[in-house]
């Protein structure tokens, strides 16, 4: 069992790296194409600058922003003994400092981790989660969240979001300038123009899809690393099954924070094919299979 988890972990890390590299290549190629078309590299720099500033800001203050968004309050050792001590234990096993711990008043079982690095890490769980899970299952969930922190998933996802955002801004600029009819050389034909427009419309969608694929990859990775922390994959598997059995969305969710949660905060009904492609999380059945080493 242990060896397959180790393999899974390195496999997942490689796949993420591959996705990121592909992503970067596509974004740079498109950006280069656009600036070449307009003969103005400044366009590329401006778009890149806007995307970077916006998202680095979000990344740097993620620990404070997300908490005000979802309405959480700090957890204490006396009031939430199991949550607090389990988090302490998993932090010891992971070699991480104890993260700030919060409880969210919400009957839907869920949990998330955020923060720009391990010293600013925040872990939050809903009251629904605490009521539903026993100590071992909670251990699995917390180990999953701490793995997100240890794997630097906030950073990975921020880079992915920066790249996707950059592309969206670029596409937007391109379309505006095309329709307002900026000065163009006559040697670039109409066919190229049409192709470019189609490409520039599809590119942000493709970027979004890759970004989400990375998010799903990171979930598998956090599952595998979390199982290595607890040495008890059944705990997380049971927790995931229980969580997926709860078929109602969280009261307060936003797309901006969806990728942070342990399970899709929009509830199970959101899982049809299109949503599968656009999902931040892989289906629970697949995650359980991966954890228990059954199936593929």
């Amino acid at each position: 069992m242990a060896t397959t988890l180790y393999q899974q972990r390195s496999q997942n890390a490689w796949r993420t790296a591959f996705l990121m590299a592909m992503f970067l290549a596509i974004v740079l190629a498109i950006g280069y194409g656009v600036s070449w078309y307009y003969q103005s590299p400044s366009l590329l720099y401006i778009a890149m600058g806007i995307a970077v500033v916006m998202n680095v800001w979000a990344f740097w203050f993620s620990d404070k922003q997300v908490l005000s968004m979802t309405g959480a309050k700090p957890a204490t050792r006396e009031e939430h003994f199991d949550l607090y001590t389990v988090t302490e234990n998993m932090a010891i096993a992971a070699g991480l400092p104890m993260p700030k711990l919060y409880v969210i008043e919400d009957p839907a079982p869920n949990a998330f981790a955020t923060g720009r690095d391990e010293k600013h890490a925040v872990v939050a769980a809903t009251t629904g989660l605490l009521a539903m899970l026993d100590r071992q299952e909670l251990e699995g969930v917390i180990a999953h969240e701490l793995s997100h922190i240890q794997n630097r998933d906030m950073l990975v996802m921020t880079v992915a979001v920066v790249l996707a955002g950059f592309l969206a801004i670029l596409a937007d600029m391109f379309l505006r300038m095309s329709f307002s009819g900026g000065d163009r050389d006559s040697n670039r034909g109409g066919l190229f123009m049409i192709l470019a427009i189609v490409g520039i419309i599809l590119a942000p969608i493709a970027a979004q899809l890759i970004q989400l694929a990375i998010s799903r990859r990171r979930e598998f990775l956090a599952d595998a690393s979390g199982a290595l922390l607890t040495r008890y994959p059944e705990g997380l598997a049971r927790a995931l099954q229980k969580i997926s059995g709860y078929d109602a969305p969280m009261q307060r969710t936003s797309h901006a924070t969806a990728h942070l949660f342990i399970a899709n905060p929009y509830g199970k009904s959101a899982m049809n094919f299109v949503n599968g492609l656009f999902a931040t999380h892989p289906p629970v059945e697949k995650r359980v299979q991966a954890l228990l080493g059954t199936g593929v």
Partner: protein
Amino acid sequence: MTTLYTVLGVLAVIGVAVALAYNGFIAKRNQAKEAWSDIDVQLKRRYDLIPNLINTVKGYAAHEAAAFENVSNARAAAMGVGATATPAQHAEAENMLTGALKSIFAIAEAYPDLKANQNFLQLQKELADTEDKIQASRRFYNQTVMALNTAIESFPGNIIAGMFKFVQMDLFELSEADQAAKEPVAVSF
């Protein structure tokens, strides 16, 4: 002249590589040592809780002297294991203590008043949590030792490790100890 420079260049590269590898070994070994002392922190927490537990239980079941003696001896033995002992020796002493504690909680089953005592319940929870923490710190120790051992065993680190006499460290055997941790000290009510 070019040959000389080439040879010097190659030597410099090798020198830097050896220095980096050496520092890497030092860092990994120190991490493992730190992880080892972190286990002691958790063990000490357990030693500190035990007298409280015994006093509480004594108030209700004073005549179970043999069990108290057992725990005290096991505790003293575990505390007496020196810093130079191997993980296996540590594990053995700690397992004895865990076993002795289990017998105390088994005794408590026969005393309903004790089982309802808030202090006792709190101590029981704390001890169970401390067991978890000991396991967690051992797992972390194993991770750091595994990183060191893998670096020592794999090429080309094995050559440099051999040169500077870096040796592999012992792992805690987890399977058995973990199994014990999954069956909590607490007895069903």
